[in-house]
């Protein structure tokens, strides 16, 4: 028999056990512990009665509330969709000018456009849609495939160089690697291309530029146009402006002409609705207009 002793501080008896000097008081379990234990058990029983809770072989107790979370979720999604539909569906047929004329609508387009763009596009095109190396700036006025709402939302639908059956193809051939142009010719063409947006080059080295011009007419103009201003049906960019996707310095240009380029822009059909795609187009056009020129 182990004999307890009285703890002078608390007045309780110890259990009489001792381990390397540690003793234990024989204090009863504090009343609140039992109380809360019972209360929490009752709360649990309530949950088990009301909600699906216990397994029964291949099925489970369904709960007195008959609550089906899936159905409840679908319902809430449907309600939210119909709330959105009231202002979004008209976007499917609306022109850009009509949309801009409606200031309430435009505000919603801006709000929603900002999050849609942030969640789907900013990873490539940047939060401000200003692009970066390999990804075009979407708020300048240089468009590959056309800058009206229909052209932009079509680009969003089918993408560029994707698996989508209607996709737009933009192939800048690897003219250097495939042997169409040797290194010297490429350097001449580069001088010509650069001179289009920087006339100073034409004054410095008129002979080189003229040579480049001839090579360009032979090799490039079928896609980029006689005036090098691009052909939107082919997604071939304007080379006479200062907007570059891959860069206008000599090294980037060399890379482009030597090895070719074919940028990949995902197709959004199936991920974004028609209305959302047009909303994004309006959002971008509006954003472009508000850029300082």
């Amino acid at each position, binding site marked *: 028999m182990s004999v307890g002793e009285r703890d002078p501080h608390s007045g309780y008896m110890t259990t009489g056990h001792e381990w*390397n000097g*540690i003793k234990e*008081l024989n*204090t009863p379990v*504090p009343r609140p512990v039992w109380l809360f234990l019972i209360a929490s058990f009752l*709360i649990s029983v309530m949950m088990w009665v009301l909600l699906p*809770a216990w397994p029964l072989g291949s099925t489970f107790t369904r709960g007195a509330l008959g609550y089906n979370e899936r159905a409840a979720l679908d319902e809430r999604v449907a309600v939210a969709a119909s709330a959105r539909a009231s*202002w979004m569906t008209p976007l499917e047929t609306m022109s850009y000018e009509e949309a801009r004329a409606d200031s309430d609508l435009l505000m919603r387009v801006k709000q929603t456009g900002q999050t849609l763009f942030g969640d789907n596009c900013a990873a490539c095109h940047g939060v401000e849609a200003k692009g970066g190396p390999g990804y075009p700036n979407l708020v300048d006025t240089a468009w590959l495939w056309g800058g009206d709402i229909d052209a932009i939302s079509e680009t969003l639908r089918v993408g560029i160089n994707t698996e989508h059956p209607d996709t737009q193809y933009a192939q800048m051939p690897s003219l250097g690697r495939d042997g169409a142009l040797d290194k010297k010719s490429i350097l001449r063409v580069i001088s010509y291309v650069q001179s289009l947006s920087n006339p100073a080059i034409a004054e410095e080295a008129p002979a080189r530029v003229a040579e480049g011009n001839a090579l360009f007419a032979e090799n490039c103009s079928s896609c980029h146009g006689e005036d090098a201003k691009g052909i939107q049906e082919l997604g071939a960019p304007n080379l006479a402006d200062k907007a570059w996707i891959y860069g206008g310095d000599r090294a980037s240009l060399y890379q482009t002409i030597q090895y070719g380029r074919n940028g990949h822009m995902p197709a959004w059909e199936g991920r974004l609705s028609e209305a959302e795609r047009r909303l994004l187009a309006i959002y971008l056009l509006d954003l472009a207009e508000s850029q300082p020129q």
Partner: protein
Amino acid sequence: MGHLTQGERELALLTGALLLALGMLMMVMAWGDPLSVHGAMFGFSGAAVMAVTLRGMFAPAPDENRFASYYDAPSKAGIVIAMIWGVFAMFIGDWVAWLLVFPEMTFDAGWASFGRLRPVHTTGVIFGFGGNALIATSFHVVQRTCRTRLPDQFSPWFVLLGYNLFCLIAVSGYMLGVTQSKEYAEPEWYADIWLVIVWVAYFLLYMRTLARRNEPHIYVANWYFLAFILVVAILHIVNGLAVPVSAFSAKSYSAFSGVQDAMTQWWYGHNAVAFFLTAGFLGMMYYYLPMQAGRPIYSYRTSIVSFWGITFFYMWAGSHHLHYTALPFWVQTLGMSFSIMLLIPSWASAANALLTLNGAWDKVRTDATLRFMALAAIFYGLSTFEGSFMAIRPVNALSHYTDWTVGHVHAGALGWVALIVFGAFYAATPKLWKCERMYSPGLIEVHFWLALSGTLIYVFAMWNSGIIQGLMWRTYNDGGTLAYSFMDSVNAMYPYYIARAFGGLLFLLGAVVGLYNIVMTIRTAADTLSEAEDRPLGPILEPAE
């Protein structure tokens, strides 16, 4: 080596040889696979064991009188190793915290990416720091509370060193890209098998020590330690079931798939919190806190109720990690309800600890070591409350996937687990190295305030950022579309991530101070106290009534 008997030395040599042979085999057969690197590590460890054993092979046999004293060398080693793991892994933790502030800090190297360093941190703190602390203190506590020496000199070293080999394999594996992709169970199959062997040895060692006890009753701390050892073995084995691609490939595929896999993983994950990070450390608390306070445990009966409450309820709660997922609703309801019930025994434990301090609160004020433990009990209460609260589904809808979870984990990990370890180490170190007190009580005080302020800054930063995240993700415009993009919520985290990394830095500095204090205590210890401080080892007492 002098501690080991001749037979034990031979056993050590054999173990080393086996490890070496196995390691070489793995290294050669798996050439080109990360497994061969780990084979080399196994082999090298085996060779090291053999070298050390051979050097001491012919040292004089251990004193026949050894059974009259406790065997503390493994505990001493464990404490130092735990502190080193702690400083290392907290450094990595703070590093990844800064990485979230400056994401480009990865030197363009795979091993330095967030995804690889994060498990280095979690494994390092949970298993390296926490696990070694548990092994070291469990050896210390079980001997004292059973008034008996560990049954042999080989198995404690096998457990301690084998366990550390596991930790090294795990951590180096992550950097090489070796992972099972199961949170807190990342190591691959071969590391898992090695841990099973080590863990079974640990279990047997513990049982054998208990069987040799000279006290009629088994003290509460030992219930907890035993629950920790036993349940972790079960969890680890079940969750680790996997089929390797081949005997010489590091890659394996889990035996479970889909939602069963998720459920098994979180049954494991949550009970790792329960039995590794809670039960084991409660064992620690139940010994060092009353010791340091010089007070009897407040209520033996409460100990019983809360022990069985915790062990029983925790087992059901794991599904609260999978609220609103493909897991059937009914499993979620069960997880939620058991999580709520779990709060009561958890709080009963915390209350039992705090009420034990009645009559010793003046010591809490003056003695930072005891204050570490008192604060740990408070944080234990706080984080268990928070946990049960977050397990309620509608609350979880807000908190899940946000930094709130991270804050919750660290309220428990820093506030509870690490603080109780520091308290226990500061209490045990002078006793083990037989000196009056720690090298510098002032530095304990410094450590205490660094740890407390670090934890508070960390947790408050994460509560804020977590709740902001949760709200940003669910806020709609009146037009019915989301008000914020995900990127907006990432940007909003920036100031909180800085605060969190700073709080973590304070906590890390505290751990460095602690390591220094412990090392200096060891270096200046002059063996001033005699064995008599400990209760002498005695003959078997009369059996329990």
